[in-house]
């Protein structure tokens, strides 16, 4: 066995894990790692972010676009605390991110040494797991365990804390072949009796609906889902995190459900007699949040790899714990291929809901409407780009109007709703899939939260497009103030705004701007088909609101469809 430094073991183990890029920022207690880094430069690319939060979102975007774990490296104290928002974001959306933090030498632990923070304590509630390495010899196993935990079962972020003396210490490199943890054995295959029961429930359904979530994407269950849906002729609605798991151009697709879901998807869920939920956790944004009123006549089959999501918000009739892909395969064995189920009545109803309140982009001859812009973007790119949206109104318009046809083409911060996620995550996605067109759709508010990463994008000569929606407001905040706070527009307007075109140019990127509807198409086309980092600032109508909407705490059949109806709900809403 070769003797080597802890810092060298770090790279050897990462290479063993197949890591090809890490996102990071150097600092005191990880300098040894940076010192040996040039030796490993061929195998592992280091992307120097400008802020650790940016690095963590990049790793997250990389993980979501590729399905492989994203890796972060940074120093202790402030660097580690900067990653917390990124870690919590990854945790809420089950993204496998592995964060390595430098730490003060073990003899100094707990002494309030320079740049010391309790990383394990701070990140305990927002990681799937974390660990502090105490000896150089234990480093490879800790790293291997971190990757194992992050990528198996329900994926999630894992943090490994590496004290300086562990990194500069020397020992023999021993990378374990396999990891087996007593307390961690995720269930992959579903229970056969439960699967038979589920199939029985589904086969007798008159008005079934698939309620699909992000778990479909993490497990790669799209082909099995399409097979199941086509055999049984079941309409499909997806959560925000599920978009892309089922092709938007397929006739069985009803678009997104939930707070800003389509009227027909929400009505279909509400009126269904059987819901087949796959890899979705029934969170309040997907269900409207009024759990007792949720789908009152439906039997619920819930497929999820995480047993703790079952019965958490909604009472489930038939739970199946397991990986979505495996469970769907198991189910397909019990479903004949040549079924000829007549669902004309059910689809007739769904079509009727679709006709009553279609999801249509708005157009205006004076001002650019964001919904129209997203629709245009979808058409120009033929629904084929990877769209990374930030958080806010534009995020919802992307979800409503961009036609996602493939998994891992829609990337957004769903669970935590992290503004500032989009741009660095888009960079991570581009590193993961350099051959794809990656477009970040950001709001002016969100973009200003991590715009320093423009430097990183330019430095890495990325081919990355940013569509920056400028409405001079925190748009979603303004919408809620309009609807629920008597139009008291407190602190939602930006009195000072940077010149985003000049800002892009200051960082060495290309900047374009469209203010008028007639400039929109040309600007988008010029921006999307120019090389390098291009920021397209699109000045839009700040008064446009995202509809339809379920007010918080509402039921799925209680949608607010248009502006006129908003007055009446002001008083009925008392929670966020």
């Amino acid at each position, binding site marked *: 066995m070769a003797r080597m430094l802890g810092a060298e073991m770090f790279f050897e183990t990462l290479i063993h894990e197949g890591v090809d890029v890490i996102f990071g920022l150097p600092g005191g207690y990880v300098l040894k790692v940076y010192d040996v880094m040039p030796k490993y430069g061929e195998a592992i690319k280091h992307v120097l972010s400008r802020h650790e939060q940016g690095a963590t979102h990049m790793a997250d975007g990389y993980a979501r676009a590729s399905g492989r774990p994203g890796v972060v490296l940074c120093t202790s104290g402030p660097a580690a605390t900067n990653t917390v928002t990124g870690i919590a974001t990854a945790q809420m959306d089950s993204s496998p991110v592995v964060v390595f933090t430098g730490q003060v030498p073990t003899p100094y632990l707990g002494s309030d040494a320079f740049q010391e923070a309790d990383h*394990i*304590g701070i990140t*305990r*509630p927002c990681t*799937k*797991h974390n660990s*502090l390495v105490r000896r150089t010899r234990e480093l490879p196993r800790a790293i291997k365990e971190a990757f194992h*935990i992050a990528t198996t079962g329900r994926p999630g972020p894992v943090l490994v804390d590496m004290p300086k003396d562990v990194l500069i210490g020397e020992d023999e490199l021993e990378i374990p072949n396999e990891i087996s*943890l*007593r*307390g*961690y054995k995720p269930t992959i295959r579903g229970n056969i009796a439960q699967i038979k029961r589920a199939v029985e429930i589904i086969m007798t359904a008159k008005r079934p609906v698939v309620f699909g979530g992000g778990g479909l994407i993490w497990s790669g269950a799209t082909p099995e889902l399409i097979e199941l849906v086509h055999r049984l002729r079941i309409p499909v609605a997806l959560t925000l995190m599920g978009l892309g798991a089922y092709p938007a151009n397929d006739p069985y697709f009803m678009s997104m459900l939930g707070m800003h879901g389509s009227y027909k998807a929400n009505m279909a869920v509400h009126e269904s007699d059987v819901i087949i939920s796959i890899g979705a956790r029934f969170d309040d944004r997907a269900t409207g949040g009024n759990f007792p009123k949720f789908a009152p006549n439906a039997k619920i089959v819930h497929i999820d790899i*995480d*047993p*703790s999501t*079952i*019965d*958490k918000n909604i009472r489930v009739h038939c739970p199946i714990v397991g990986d979505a892909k495996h469970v769907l395969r198991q189910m397909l064995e019990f479903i004949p291929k040549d079924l000829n189920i007549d669902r004309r009545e059910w689809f007739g109803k769904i079509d009727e809901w679709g006709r009553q309140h279609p999801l249509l982009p708005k157009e205006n001859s004076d001002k650019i409407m964001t919904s129209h812009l997203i629709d245009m973007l979808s058409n120009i790119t033929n629904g084929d780009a990877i769209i990374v949206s930030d958080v806010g109104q534009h995020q919802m318009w992307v979800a409503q109007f961009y036609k996602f046809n493939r998994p891992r083409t829609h990337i957004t911060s769903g669970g935590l709703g992290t503004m500032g996620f989009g741009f660095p995550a888009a960079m991570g996605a581009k590193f993961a899939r350099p051959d794809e067109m990656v477009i970040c759709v950001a709001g002016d508010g969100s973009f200003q939260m991590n715009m320093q990463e423009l430097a990183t994008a330019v430095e890495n000569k990325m081919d990355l497009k940013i569509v920056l929606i400028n409405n001079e407001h925190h748009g979603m905040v303004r919408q809620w103030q309009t609807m629920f706070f008597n139009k008291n527009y407190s602190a939602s307007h930006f009195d000072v705004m940077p010149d985003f075109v000049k800002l892009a140019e200051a960082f060495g990127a290309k900047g374009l701007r469209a203010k008028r509807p007639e400039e929109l198409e040309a600007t988008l086309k010029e921006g999307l088909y120019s090389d390098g980092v291009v920021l397209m600032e699109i000045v839009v109508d700040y008064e446009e609101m995202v509809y339809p909407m379920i007010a918080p705490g509402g039921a799925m059949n209680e949608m607010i469809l248009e502006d006129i109806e908003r007055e009446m709900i002001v008083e009925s809403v008392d929670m966020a």
Partner: protein
Amino acid sequence: MRHTISILVDNEPGVLARIAGLFSARGFNIESLCVGETLDPTTSRITLVTSGDDWIIEQIIKRFNNMINVIKVQDLSELTHVEREMVLVRMEATPETRPEILRTADIFRAKVIDVGPRSYMLELTGDRDKITAFLEILRPMGIKEIARTGSVALAREIQNNKRR
């Protein structure tokens, strides 16, 4: 309802904080918490007493099961089990109260473990009710201080299947 949950965990630093953190994050209350090494020094047994409706308890147990360092979780309230606490009591002891304190200790089968010019220290193990009763009886005689553990518990070998 009151639940006694037995959790077998890896004997590693920080595991107890993970268990306790789950309660604080969700606003659940812990009535008592006891930890000690098992026969296998790489594992510890945590005995945790909490109360809540079935849904809360189910959530808590599922969350425990999700933790990487948790090996096994058992809700002992669903089983016939033995539960014990221990208390140390320092009693104010005057020539007048000494005999009565000793008599009470004898009735409860408590042990005198320290004797001083002004005090006795008593030790008692038993279930929660017994310890509470013991303290109630002693209180008028002048308790100076107490240290009371939480519950430790194990399932009985013979299950009477009453609750299952």
